[in-house]
């Protein structure tokens, strides 16, 4: 028994010692309202900057950095400069919760931006909700994200709208009646889009001739492709990320399947055409804006991004960029930069003109915005159709 007791003594010792070492004593006086009085607005950012999804986080971070730089260069928001506190979630949902706690309690941010992966946003949401800090997800499209609390917002469209829009586009505009679906079973983005496309395409009167999933970090899709090839569809819905779509398209063409592929915003990347080669010629995907849009906001953003990072932006960069500007708008609407004022302000965002379209935040704290269907031809993307939220259902 002495052993057990000494062990526990050690444990308590370790606990106290490590905390003392970390210097983690509670700062009793500070709440985030006080922090904002100092002429700075602290925005917390949690994204996957390393690990398997690091590319998502880094490109989003670029968009955020660009927006913050622009805002600060033009004098900040109401004279206050934005300070970013950025944390790496290492592509792990559970780490998202740990870093969210750090942002909410140690760094005392006024508002948080994150994450791309819905899984991480869902893990972090209860933390910010508990701390009374608004959280804006730039690109978590899973419907559950904003259901986690009344301070959880997003600036992207949802899986349900995107899936419905793709189904309507395939059925009505392209006139396809037989579709096949290939999606990632363990990825909420992919699975969600597949689900809504499936139900919507069927409701319109089409048939899903084959519906196959894959699981895990798969890089070859021979079997899934064989299965779809045997069903002979007119169009293939592939709601996956750009890293996979090139490989999927190559496997389709290798087995002689010529049907066009159709996907969501996850396809977009400067590398899309390169990774897919000519296999995506004539395929379509839904996106946030038209890269050839004459709109000065879009063109200005594209130019500034290229100048700063020497590469083309992707959809995630644009959403990160818009998240910052939406917060700026919210601070102006809410009348201040405290967490409560920003939350109030975010609820009032209407007809916000961003790079990713003009959107409003609805009563469920989701962005209502149009989707632009793009067609791949050569190395170019061309606009085919813009679908408004009111066009479906």
């Amino acid at each position: 028994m002495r052993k057990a007791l000494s062990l526990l003594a050690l444990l308590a010792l370790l606990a106290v010692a490590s905390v003392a070492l970390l210097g983690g004593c509670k700062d009793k006086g500070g709440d985030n309202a006080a922090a904002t009085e100092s002429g700075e607005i602290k925005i917390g950012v949690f994204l996957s900057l390393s690990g398997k999804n690091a590319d998502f986080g880094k490109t989003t971070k670029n968009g955020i950095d660009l927006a913050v730089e622009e805002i600060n260069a033009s004098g900040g928001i109401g004279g206050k400069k934005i300070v970013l506190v950025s944390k790496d979630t290492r592509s792990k949902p559970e780490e998202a919760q740990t870093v969210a706690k750090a942002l909410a309690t140690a760094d005392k941010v006024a508002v948080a931006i994150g994450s791309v992966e819905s899984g991480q946003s869902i893990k972090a949401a209860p933390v910010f909700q508990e701390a009374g800090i608004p959280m804006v997800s730039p690109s978590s499209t899973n419907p559950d994200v904003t259901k986690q609390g009344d301070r959880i917002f997003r600036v992207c469209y949802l899986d349900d709208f995107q899936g419905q829009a793709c189904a309507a586009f395939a059925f009505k505009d392209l006139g396809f009646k037989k579709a096949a679906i290939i999606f990632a079973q363990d990825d909420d983005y992919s699975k969600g889009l597949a689900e809504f496309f499936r139900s919507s395409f069927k409701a319109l009167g089409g048939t899903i001739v084959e519906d196959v999933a894959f699981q895990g970090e798969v890089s070859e899709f021979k079997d899934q492709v064989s299965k779809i090839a045997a069903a002979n569809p007119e169009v293939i819905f592939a709601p996956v990320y750009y890293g996979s779509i090139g490989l999927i398209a190559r496997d389709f063409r290798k087995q002689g399947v010529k049907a066009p592929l159709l996907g969501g915003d996850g396809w977009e990347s400067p590398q899309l055409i390169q990774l897919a080669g000519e296999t995506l010629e004539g395929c379509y995907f839904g996106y946030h804006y038209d890269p050839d849009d004459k709109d000065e906001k879009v063109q200005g953003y594209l130019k500034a991004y290229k100048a700063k990072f020497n590469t083309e932006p992707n959809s995630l960069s644009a959403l990160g960029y818009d998240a910052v500007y939406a917060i700026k708008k919210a601070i102006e609407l809410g009348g201040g930069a405290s967490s409560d004022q920003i939350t109030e302000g975010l609820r009032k965002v209407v007809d916000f003109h961003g790079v990713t379209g003009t959107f409003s935040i609805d009563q469920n704290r989701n962005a209502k915005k149009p989707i632009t269907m793009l067609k791949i031809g050569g190395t170019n993307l061309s606009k085919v159709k813009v679908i408004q939220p009111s066009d479906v259902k």
Partner: protein
Amino acid sequence: MAEVSLTTELLQYVANGIAKGSTYALMAVGYTLVYGVLQLINFAHAEVYMLGSYFAWFQAKWAGYLPDDKGARAETVPIGMVALFVAGAMAACALVGMLIERVAYRPLRGAGRLAPLITAIGVSLLLQYGGQVVFGTEPKLFPTFAETRVYDVGGVKFPNTNIYIVLTSVVLMLGLTLFVNKTRPGAAMRACSHDMRTARLMGVNVNATVSLTFAIGSALAAVAGVLVAMDQPAITPLMGVRIGLKAFVAAVVGGIGSIPGAALGGLLLGVSESVVSGLWKPVYSEAVAFVFLIVVLLVKPSGILGKSVREKV
């Protein structure tokens, strides 16, 4: 397209599975060789495979086959250059394999079996995370080495890449079997795997033999890395994780320590995954490997072609 008969469909999945299984087999050999000699699960093997792809990628880049402009398409690499790249990747990976053994495993020889297992995990993590820092996290386009052609035999489609994969694997496996069974270094490897201490008493240079084992296994992993990358031309620092686990399972199923076992295990796993995908649900194919594994282990714990060892007090 005409109606596809069930037989044709089944044959298509078997064909897919053989191509997939060949790469598993090439990787499985690396696990099996090391396990045979050191009784060590070399977790870092999967990362050597990843490095193999990257070494070939860098050579292609320096040789100018990859465009700098992200919008442009990669050129096709002539077959002679491909051979050169593969040779370069094999040499580099062999060195990496030997270095890993020297630094992370050799100091722990005789320190039980768990400590080297943990260093193996550590090296594996190091290469994964290090790869992300050094190579970047975005997928890199791998050049193709031939125009994709699809051969159609009675409705079953064989892309030429699959044929190259299978042929290369078969040649390498046969070569390795000959090497192990017919040459003096091969005999030394077999001696070490039977009993390292006795082998040392018989004058076998154990350290050199272990290094050789790692060199060969790693070089084969490099080949697998290049073959797979040519078929699926987007490489990332984490590309080894999944295939590594599969290949290890294949090695255990076939009978760890046995080269024909690794080949058999790889093919069985590849084919059964494909057939399950085709006739049932692709999503269950990931679980197939493990169900297969558990069933084989329960029926014959030492694997299909493994030797069963009687335990003595």
